[in-house]
């Protein structure tokens, strides 16, 4: 028969676990709201930026003098994968699903005979990738002391990526992050940042007829803006990722809280049964003792 005291201890420990997961869920909910607001605030910039860039890219894109950031180096031998994950765990499958996608693509590229280099952002992704792709890791960006993501953080990563590109370390760069769809759904995504691709804005097809004057020239502007485009794309990916992380953590902690509740219920039933059995036993002992007299 299980010991009553042990059962009591277990119930208490599960109860305190539930308190922790509940608190984490509420913290994640508050942070999620902030992260969503931030992502929302950053959207107008990214949208406008993409709109202008896709127009510019169209008009300059085909000429021979187009910057390398746009047209590529002419080869696709070396790939840089920028894998963005969280700094903390306890957020369900968030980190694993990004890593899984990145690992799948990396293995595919390796199998095709390409050279793969991996730059990790966020501690959790590096830990998971180090196991089987450790030789391909070339760098790591630590964001653990960043309290509130700023554009400067994205710029730091972009500068790192761009200086490697200028040094000829890779031909194609892709970022891996999670798109925030809803609290229960975050989609791991791959996006190519070098050579640059720009999603044409929706519903502005009729605007395409507007011919803009460019000051200074188109190519100067493009050369100035392309590096910023890399930073902008990294920034929006970071924000999406932050919102996804909090969303994933919130639903993971919600599940954990519910599971803890179920467990407490089961343990309480067992505890009461055991207690009754002990009482019944004692009564039987008393009665049979009295009868023996």
């Amino acid at each position: 028969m299980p010991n009553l005291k042990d059962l009591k201890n277990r119930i208490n420990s599960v109860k305190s676990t539930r308190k922790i997961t509940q608190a984490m869920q509420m913290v994640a909910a508050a942070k999620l709201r902030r992260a969503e607001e931030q992502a929302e605030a950053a959207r107008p910039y990214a949208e406008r930026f993409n709109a202008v860039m896709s127009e510019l890219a169209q008009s300059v894109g085909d000429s021979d003098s187009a910057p390398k950031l746009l047209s590529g180096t002419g080869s696709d031998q070396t790939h840089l994968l920028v894998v963005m994950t969280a700094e903390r765990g306890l957020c369900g499958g968030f980190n694993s699903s990004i890593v899984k996608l990145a690992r799948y693509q990396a293995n595919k590229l390796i199998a095709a005979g390409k050279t793969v280099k991996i730059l990790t952002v966020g501690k959790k992704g590096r830990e998971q990738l180090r196991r089987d792709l450790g030789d391909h890791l070339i760098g790591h960006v630590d964001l653990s002391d960043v309290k509130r993501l700023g554009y400067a953080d994205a710029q730091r990563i972009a500068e790192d990526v761009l200086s490697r590109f200028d040094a000829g370390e890779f031909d194609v760069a892709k970022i891996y992050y999670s798109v925030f769809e809803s609290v229960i759904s975050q989609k791991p995504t791959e996006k190519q940042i070098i050579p640059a691709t720009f999603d044409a804005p929706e519903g502005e097809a009729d605007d395409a007829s507007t011919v803009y004057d460019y000051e200074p020239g188109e190519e100067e502007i493009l050369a100035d803006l392309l590096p910023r485009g890399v930073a902008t794309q990294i920034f929006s990916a970071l924000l999406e990722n932050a919102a996804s992380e909090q969303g994933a953590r919130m639903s993971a902690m919600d599940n954990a809280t519910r599971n803890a509740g179920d467990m407490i219920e089961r343990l309480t039933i067992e505890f009461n049964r055991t207690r009754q059995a002990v009482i019944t036993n004692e009564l039987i002992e008393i009665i049979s003792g009295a009868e023996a007299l």
Partner: protein
Amino acid sequence: MADTMQFDLVSPERRLLSGQAKAVRIPGADGDMTAMPDHAPTVTTLRPGVLTVEMDGGEEKFAVTGGFAQISAEGTTVLAEEALPLGEVTSEFLSERVAKAEKARDEAEGDAIDSAAKLVSDLVAMGDEIGIPASSRAPAP
């Protein structure tokens, strides 16, 4: 002719201003320009400087450190890398930017030296314009 146009000032982190403007003075890379309603469609990059927006309620001024502006007949959008209302610009903020630009200038090679030097002088000129001349700036951290 409409006497106002839609004007948006956005930075990567937030939207700073959105509303109807009569005229916008933009510190373009090749010189200042003023955008008014029905301006010819133009895209220009920005140099560090002061952006002035004339609205019905009066003027609003912002310090921008770079980015670009898209002007079309319907409206003007300024996408600034960093933008601050003029009153919020501190001498520390400016010193930090100048120090960074000076460092870039000292490390630059070839053609890049000129543009890096221009960035420094633009920043210093912006400081003079908003009343934080180099002499009164706090030392860079």
